[in-house]
């Protein structure tokens, strides 16, 4: 993370960074050029922090959803959080073009889509887990269609590019204020998932067995669902849609340390954080203009995943 602070358009040596951070933390007035201080403290540091939070949130909620739905193919976006948030953001871009409202709309629609998926899942009570995923797919596709509708109606010179870039994900807008606002749901969600991490193991045995093992399944599932949704919606509303992290980081964790969520949850948190930090660092350095994150997460994560698959022989699947 510290390393990420040195890299960028203004390459700075580690020693300068350390001094700037030190002076800032103690409220001292340093003798550095203003540009240095702004670059490190106001641009790179919040961005790195945000990357850590977003990566960790997406990865850990992906892990939780995979366990909860007993399905290794689901990701943090399965219940429609990403699609809902994408629609909320696009709508806000077209209607208001105000950053705060984009966050609020994205968060609200992200949460709304999970609530909708949940309600659809409840229609059919015999196998609630499967219908919940089905509900998520339905809600996701409806919101994707709505995003297309908004794109179609958007002004092609100003609003459309904004929507497209938002949908591809970026941490470029990171400021401390964003971190304060979106960090709260992310932190609560992650803390909640960390607390119930072992119970996710038991929930992955299926409703009937989990209940006979002594878990109050409706309460525990609701809790996991709420925490994972908060973490994902918090992440998506500031960073846009970053694919791949919520699906593959959990699997990389599974290959490295196994499937016990007691270990896997903290490992996903740190892997997700490191991965997104690294990807974001590349995003802002390899070319003159920023590369959207989703492109890089897939381009980097894909080959790495295949490499791990080969090396660990899939870990017992």
């Amino acid at each position: 993370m510290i390393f990420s602070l040195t890299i960028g358009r203004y390459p700075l040596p580690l020693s300068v960074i350390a001094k700037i951070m030190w002076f800032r933390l103690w409220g001292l007035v340093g003798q550095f050029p203003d540009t240095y201080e702004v670059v490190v403290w106001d641009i790179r540091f919040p961005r790195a922090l945000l990357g850590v939070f977003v990566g960790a949130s997406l990865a850990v909620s992906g892990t939780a959803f995979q366990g909860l739905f007993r399905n290794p193919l689901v990701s943090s976006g399965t219940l429609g959080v990403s699609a809902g948030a994408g629609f909320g953001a696009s709508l806000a871009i077209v209607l208001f073009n105000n950053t705060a409202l984009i966050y609020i709309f994205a968060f609200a629609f992200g949460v709304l889509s999970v609530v909708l998926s949940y309600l659809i899942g409840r229609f059919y009570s015999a196998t609630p887990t499967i219908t919940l995923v089905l509900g998520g797919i339905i809600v996701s596709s409806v919101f994707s269609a709505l995003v297309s509708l908004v794109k179609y109606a958007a002004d092609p010179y100003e609003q459309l590019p904004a929507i497209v870039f938002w949908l591809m994900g970026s941490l470029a807008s990171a400021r401390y204020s964003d971190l304060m606002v979106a960090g709260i749901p992310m932190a609560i969600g992650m803390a909640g998932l960390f607390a119930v991490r072992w119970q996710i193991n038991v929930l992955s045995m299926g409703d009937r067995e989990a209940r006979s093992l002594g878990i109050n399944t409706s309460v525990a599932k609701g809790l996991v669902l709420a925490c994972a949704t908060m973490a994902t919606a918090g992440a998506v509303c500031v960073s846009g849609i970053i694919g791949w992290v919520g699906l593959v980081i959990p699997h990389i964790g599974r290959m490295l340390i196994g499937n016990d969520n007691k270990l896997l949850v903290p490992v996903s948190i740190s892997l997700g954080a490191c991965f997104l930090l690294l990807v974001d660092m590349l995003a802002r350095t390899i070319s003159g203009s920023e590369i959207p994150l989703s492109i890089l997460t897939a381009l980097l994560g894909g080959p790495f995943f295949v490499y791990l698959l080969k090396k660990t022989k899939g870990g017992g699947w």
Partner: protein
Amino acid sequence: MALLEVKNLFFSYSDQPVLEEVNFKLGKGEIFCLFGPNGCGKSTLLECVLGTLKISRGYVYLNGRDVRNLRPAEAARQMAYVPQLHQKTFPYTVKEIVLMGRAAYTGMFTSPSEEDYAAVEEAMQKIGIQRLSEKPYTQLSGGELQLVMIARALAQKTPVMIMDEPTAHLDFRHELIILETVVQLVRETGLSILMATHFPNHAFFFDNNDIPTTVALMNSRRFAAVGRPEEVLSEQSMQRTFNVEARMVSYYREGKKEFRQIVAVRTNGLR
């Protein structure tokens, strides 16, 4: 007092009756076998007892308490469940699976303690599966998996264990291994077992091994007969319930008591 008592139980899926007027008791160190054709409601009855299905009428008492008033964790400290077919998901290790038997003793926001790990070791040792401890349970054979499920139920340290056709899909030898394990557990720990089974000879096996065994012959939603294996699983009842001609055979092993088994000869009537 009976550990488990089912009183005048009725159950229906929407308006289709599945179980009617079911009554039985299970005491300490006893085995109660539910026996009957496919679709007669054995698994449904087990789910009613477990509380995963809501009964329409009647009562299920566990240690004198109505199961509907028990929280899942309280119920899970009284009765453990061995599923018929466990759907495998993630390749957890055997140890991690058995540890899940301790969920009832673990708070919502905590992880298992040293004591829980000790209980897991003990359960695996009793079933004899320590050598599988670190193996991904998705790579086990059907028989090994069933032993793991029994070990998980044993780690729950309950007085009652509920088994749904524990030998389904197992080979000749593993079927016997499971039955012997059950006999050993009942003998050594005084466990009480409620078991659904497709094989009349399971009941005879327990009876032959001097375990107090009761059989309920289920047919079309109710108990057609309840009693000792040789009374309930007679040649006549096989004919009536399954339209199968069967012979009761008996033999003396090691010059000791009489061992009984029932052998199917041929089906009668329309198929």
